[in-house]
């Protein structure tokens, strides 16, 4: 196993002195009171990624997003002027949920010419303006032009649609994302339009699940089957090549191996016959030079960079495809997990088969994480233990929980200021 160099301070963690090296308390992942604070301090303040522009391909394309923790339902729509906008999903007449089908609590989508409220039939155009009020002359001093849908701040970065539920966002989207994340400017997400979408309702706090996807320390133990038995080393560890923190965001890069250059026994039979597997297709279409920000640690050979965009988006970037995770809290002890795999549209059967293998293998191993984390939640909820040690390989877990605490702390201090 290659030993990747650590920063001059001796460890990644000490390279960021504000993180400390002490034990970390995970009460933030079981406490209902803390969950209430996250609602206000994080999910009603941060920019939240709700989808990609490919999800709104044409004028009138629309989907709704239930952001349970923020008590919000948001309409995302591409207007007649081709602009993407976000609105609260509430009718201006008597507050009915505007866009829904069958069950008002479920997300929906499609292509719309206008939005018509099911209750009394008020209508809104794709830009949110109220265009029709049933029996308008029965109302008193009603000014239709001031009855448009309540807008939600919405902005787009590299095809990622973000909303911000704050009345006045403290930062613009680009400023919020900062230089490390916007280092992905120019990565050709928009070309990778062949998508697989997954969803899981998971019985764990959103942060505990995200933790399992921002460290690789657990991989040899929880996912030993990622290596075929013939070449599996029971004592093997896993060392990441590069860690980086920037504001509330995090990144880890790992080294890559050229699977097809390995001896046969290093691969499962399904990998050999399809030339694809855990790390995706062995050879991906040439997408041209990737932006430097994809591999800021200049890891060579580079395999993957895993960007964690605060609070609840993760972007895993491979040379020719990507994976997205989003963690949507639904209670202190549960969240809705979304995953998307994006590939260049297959041009041949072989490429489609390669994508299918990557998608199936991805699900096998993501299920291992999902199957376990409910147990982490249950064990933490016993309240027996509170403080836990974190290794240098788990620096990003440490950083994540610290940032969450910092945002909650800032919110609390403002609250005290307002009262006092």
């Amino acid at each position, binding site marked *: 196993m290659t030993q990747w160099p650590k920063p001059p301070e001796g460890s990644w963690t000490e390279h960021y002195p504000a993180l400390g090296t002490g034990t970390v308390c995970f009460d933030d992942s079981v406490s209902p009171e803390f969950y209430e604070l996250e609602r206000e301090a994080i999910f009603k303040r941060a920019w939240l990624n709700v989808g990609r522009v490919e999800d709104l391909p044409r004028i009138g394309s629309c989907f709704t997003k239930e952001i349970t923790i923020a008590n919000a339902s948001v309409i995302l729509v591409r207007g007649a002027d081709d602009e993407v906008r976000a609105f609260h999903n509430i009718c201006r007449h008597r507050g009915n949920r505007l866009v829904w089908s069958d069950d008002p609590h479920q997300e929906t989508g499609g292509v719309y010419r206008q939005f018509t409220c099911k209750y009394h039939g008020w209508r809104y155009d794709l830009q949110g303006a109220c265009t029709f009020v049933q029996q308008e002359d029965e109302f008193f001093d009603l000014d239709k032009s001031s009855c448009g849908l309540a807008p939600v701040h919405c902005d787009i970065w590299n095809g990622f649609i973000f909303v911000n539920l704050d009345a006045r966002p403290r930062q613009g989207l680009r400023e919020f994302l900062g230089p490390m994340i916007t280092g992905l400017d120019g990565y050709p997400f928009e070309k990778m339009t*062949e*998508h*697989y*979408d*997954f*969803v*899981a*309702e*998971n*019985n764990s706090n959103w942060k505990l699940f995200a933790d399992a996807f921002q460290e690789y320390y657990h991989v040899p133990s929880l996912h030993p*089957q990622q290596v075929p038995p013939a070449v599996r080393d029971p004592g093997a560890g896993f060392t990441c090549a590069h860690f980086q923190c920037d504001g509330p965001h995090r990144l880890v890069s790992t080294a890559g191996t050229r699977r097809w250059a390995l001896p046969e026994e290093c691969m*499962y*039979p*399904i990998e050999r*016959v*399809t030339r694809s597997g855990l790390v995706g297709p062995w050879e991906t279409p040439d997408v041209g030079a990737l932006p430097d920000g994809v591999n800021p640690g200049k890891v060579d050979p580079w395999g993957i960079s895993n960007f964690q965009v605060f609070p609840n988006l993760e972007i895993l970037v491979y040379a020719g495809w990507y994976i997205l995770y989003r963690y949507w809290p639904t209670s202190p002890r549960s969240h809705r997990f979304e*995953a998307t795999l994006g590939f260049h*549209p*297959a*041009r*041949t*059967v*072989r*490429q*489609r*088969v390669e*994508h*299918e*293998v990557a*998608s*199936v*293998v991805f*699900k*096998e191993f*993501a*299920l*291992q994480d*999902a*199957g*376990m984390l*409910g147990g982490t939640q249950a064990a933490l909820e016993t309240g027996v233990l509170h403080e836990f040690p974190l290794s240098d390989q788990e620096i990003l877990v440490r950083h994540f929980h610290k940032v969450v605490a910092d945002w909650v702390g800032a919110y609390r201090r403002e609250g005290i200021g307002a009262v006092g």
Partner: protein
Amino acid sequence: MTMLPTEFADLEPFAPKWCLPSEPGRYAMRLSSSMDEMYEFYEAIHPRAAAAISHLERFDLYGLPEDATNLLHLLYSMIMVSFPVEAWGQPRVPDTGSASFDCFTEPAP
């Protein structure tokens, strides 16, 4: 009435069960199948996979005739059962009794 191209008549016995167009359908079939059924299917199709891919490569992916589409779906099922057969030794991923992971968008074909 056969489902597969004549060159792959040997796989015909598996076609009615495993030519499934969607991931949820294939995953459900995997969970409801015995390991013996999956071993038998995998041992039959894995040695034929390279030939099947080569056969299908002669067509436009987005204009596959029906028997070729069926063969492609059979390859997808091979992929679906590969981990139970090669790694898990059981239909379900071990230790995932409380978890699910549902695919709701996938490319076609």
